[in-house]
């Protein structure tokens, strides 16, 4: 019995693995996941990928597929969200107040860098850019960014002590033993971090896919999302 | 009948930045008789291999014509140039060129399998027996000695049932011992072959042992062409300046050499030799080197030299070396060359027309070459 295929942003990997098992444990066919960058997934869906559900790490890529009429617009929801945090290596515990005007450059020292996703295309980088701009630090800090390919890579740079700070999602910070949260960016510093889910066009008439979608976006999944540090949408 | 006429030029660009442009021009025309071996003889670099390549179709000459028994293989004027695979010229290369990944037997059968159904020629077993390679069939070429390798190459070419056999110095890569080993097989093949053979060499002993017809080449041109015996007897060619110059005598074995000396008859006389030329009636060609022939104006006695032939001194010609001359001696209808010093010429007051005795030792002949040259009656 083939379960529905879920194209999901790589940052949802841990939580979705658990949710998939729960779903299967209820006697449903196990869903198949394809984890990759949201951008790659969006493009693949455009090229006819056999995705039944798309779970993006940011809204613009969901907009991209929606504009191309590849999803069932009515199903689009953003049930979970995340917070943006500044992390530091676990052994270097100094809280940082993240407010307008905080002089991050001074904290970085002469050579230190802030590891985060590439603002050009990685969602976490885009949120980081917005937050730093809000703080008035963007111009100063931009040349000091270590632009990673994805959140985990950015996290790794902090864990290994290469960068004294990193800007990642709260979820990633929570499960990494190597880092400690130095501060959380105020919600108003960036647009809300949300994970849009939608049913794709090809799954429009697929009852199983709809059921899974309902499960993942619904109440039953909420404890798991929370366990992995995601915030629930108000 | 093999008609060959070729013109081709290689340009040698010379070293980098050098403006010197030397090259090599081949310009030859000759005809080989429809049976027997035609030797292309000449020094290294005179164009022998180039001719063979053009006949086989492996090189396309700038202009030329090659015809075999009237069938045109190449005619640049008419725009005809058959590819090698449709020329049916069996080639034996200097370096054997056996297929290393195939067994000896598969190598041998390679051409056979691709020969036209109706092509005539010796069968597989026949060729294997002829060349004495039965014990090698299962082996790989890499394990063969040089001599064995060339024998297999001969067999492979022959089994392709060619209309023409081309051999490019098949013995040159072998040392003296191996050459001696393969030469008799070549001779057997010459006798068994029903097609003409073009044989490239720069070794005189191979010409002696094998060639019926000779094309003498130098620097891309034909110096002389004709029956091997005729060419050998000429003193106006570069051949004559070799120390081993001399006539080729076509002989027939007269007496069976059962323990005794072999008596070879030639038109006009007999030679006693220590050769082992086979049964009476066997035909055999021997080189009688001019330097090995002495002349006497009175019949000598009490001398070990066993062949004392009555002859008439026909002509006296220079012999390349300033101190030496060739004497052309008529021995009946045959001609013999003798190389003597000008000193002796004057001492004995030799003049054309004089009757003389030609002295030839019985031990003077080359056993290896003669053995190969012997053809059954």
């Amino acid at each position, binding site marked *: 019995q083939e379960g529905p*295929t879920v*194209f999901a942003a*790589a*940052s949802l*990997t*841990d939580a979705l*693995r658990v949710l998939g098992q729960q779903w299967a444990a209820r006697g449903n066919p196990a869903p*198949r*996941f*394809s*984890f*990759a960058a949201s951008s*790659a*997934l969006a*493009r*693949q869906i*455009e*090229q*006819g*990928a*056999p995705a039944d559900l798309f779970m993006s790490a940011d809204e613009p890529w969901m907009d991209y597929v929606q504009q191309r009429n590849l999803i069932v617009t009515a199903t689009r929801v953003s049930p979970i969200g995340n917070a943006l945090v500044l992390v530091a290596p676990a052994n270097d515990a100094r809280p940082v107040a993240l407010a307008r005007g905080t002089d991050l450059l001074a904290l970085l020292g002469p050579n230190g860098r802030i590891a985060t996703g590439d603002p050009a295309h990685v969602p976490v980088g885009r949120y980081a850019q917005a937050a730093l701009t809000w703080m008035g630090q963007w111009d100063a800090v931009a040349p000091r960014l270590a632009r990673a390919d*994805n959140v*985990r890579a950015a996290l790794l740079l902090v864990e290994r002590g290469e960068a004294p700070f990193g800007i990642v999602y709260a979820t*990633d910070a929570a*499960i*990494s033993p190597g880092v400690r949260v130095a501060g959380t960016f105020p919600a108003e510093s960036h647009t809300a971090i949300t994970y849009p889910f939608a049913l794709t066009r090809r799954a429009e008439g697929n009852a199983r896919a709809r059921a899974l979608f309902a499960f993942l976006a619904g109440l039953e999944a909420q404890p798991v999302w929370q366990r992995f540090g995601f915030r629930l949408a108000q | 009948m093999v008609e060959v006429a070729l013109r081709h030029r290689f340009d040698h660009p010379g070293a980098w930045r050098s403006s010197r442009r030397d090259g090599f021009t081949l310009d030859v025309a000759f005809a080989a008789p429809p049976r027997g071996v035609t030797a292309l003889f000449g020094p290294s670099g005179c164009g022998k291999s180039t001719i063979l390549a053009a006949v*086989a*179709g*492996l090189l396309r000459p700038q202009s030329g014509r090659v015809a075999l028994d009237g069938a045109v293989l190449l005619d640049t004027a008419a725009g005809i140039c058959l*590819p*090698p*695979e*449709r*020329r*049916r*010229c*069996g*080639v034996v*290369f200097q*370096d054997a*060129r056996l*297929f*290393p*990944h195939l067994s000896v037997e598969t190598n041998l059968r*390679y*051409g056979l399998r*691709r*020969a036209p159904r109706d092509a005539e020629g010796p069968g597989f077993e026949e060729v294997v027996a002829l060349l004495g390679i039965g014990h090698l069939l299962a082996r*790989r*070429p*890499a*394990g063969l000695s040089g001599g064995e390798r060339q024998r297999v190459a001969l067999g*492979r*070419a022959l089994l*392709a049932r060619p209309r023409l056999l*081309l051999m490019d110095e098949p013995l040159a890569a072998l040392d003296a011992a191996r050459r001696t080993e393969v030469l008799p097989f070549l001779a057997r093949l010459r006798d068994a072959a029903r097609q003409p053979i073009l044989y490239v060499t720069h070794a005189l002993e191979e010409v002696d042992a094998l060639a019926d017809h000779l094309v003498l080449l130098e620097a891309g041109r034909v110096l002389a062409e004709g029956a091997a015996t005729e060419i050998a007897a000429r003193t106006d060619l570069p051949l004559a300046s070799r120390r081993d110059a001399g006539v080729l005598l076509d002989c027939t074995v007269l007496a069976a050499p059962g323990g005794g000396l072999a008596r070879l008859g030639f038109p006009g006389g007999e030679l006693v030799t220590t050769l082992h030329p086979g049964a009476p009636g066997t035909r055999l060609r021997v080189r009688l080197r001019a330097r090995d022939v002495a002349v006497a104006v009175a019949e000598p006695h009490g001398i070990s030299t066993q062949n004392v032939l009555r002859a008439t001194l026909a002509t006296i010609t220079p012999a390349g070396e300033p101190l030496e001359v060739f004497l052309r001696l008529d021995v009946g209808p045959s001609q013999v060359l003798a190389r003597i010093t000008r000193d002796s010429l004057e001492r004995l007051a030799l003049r054309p027309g004089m009757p003389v005795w030609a002295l030839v030792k019985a031990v003077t002949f080359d056993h290896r070459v003669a053995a190969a040259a012997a053809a059954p009656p």
Partner: protein
Amino acid sequence: MTLGLAAEEWQAVRLSLEVATRSVAVSLVPAIAIAWLLARGRFPGRMLLDALVHLPLVVPPVVVGWGLLMLFGIRGPIGAPLHDWFGIRLVFTTEGAALATAVMSFPLIVRAVRLGLEAVDPGLEAAARTLGAGPIDRFLTVTLPLMSPGILAGTVTAFAAGLGEFGAVITFVSNIPGETQTLPLAIYSATQTAGGEATAARLAGISFALAVAGLLLAELLARRMHRWLGRA
């Protein structure tokens, strides 16, 4: 005997072997043809062809995958007719993974095959001609067997590279377990998981072991081959 691997991970190993094998299988014949053209051909666009063959080496794998997606996606200029007329879909299938892998390892295999071909003595081909073998005949019976060491070397390199191909595959066919999730993609997924380093290292170890096995086998084969060709 699970070696501590999840079923999904075993699947990735199997799939990787399948993808690497199929990629080598599909690229071998074109690689031989192109190597032949590059080594023997004398035509104007030879250098350009040479450069094109190197293209997948020069641009990042992700871009290759992206290019493949554009070409072979069901909206692409090749993918659309393939899908509409023959019902063939490459994107998101094992076949597609093999295709992406084949494209990526193509320069490596062509290079090795070409070196093998250049080592073939043209004299032997000439000999075959004089024995009556036409072009295809002599290619199959002489050239091909004699260039086999190069083909073997190319196969091994391509196979090894195929086991590690990542960027082009994930971009072209996505990361679907059992379908397109090869070992490198599984490794990637593991690194995307908290504490996945151990899994990633284990999978990388398996990758390495497979490659070593392939190299060993190739070394043995090469020795046998050299003996066969009398070059021992």
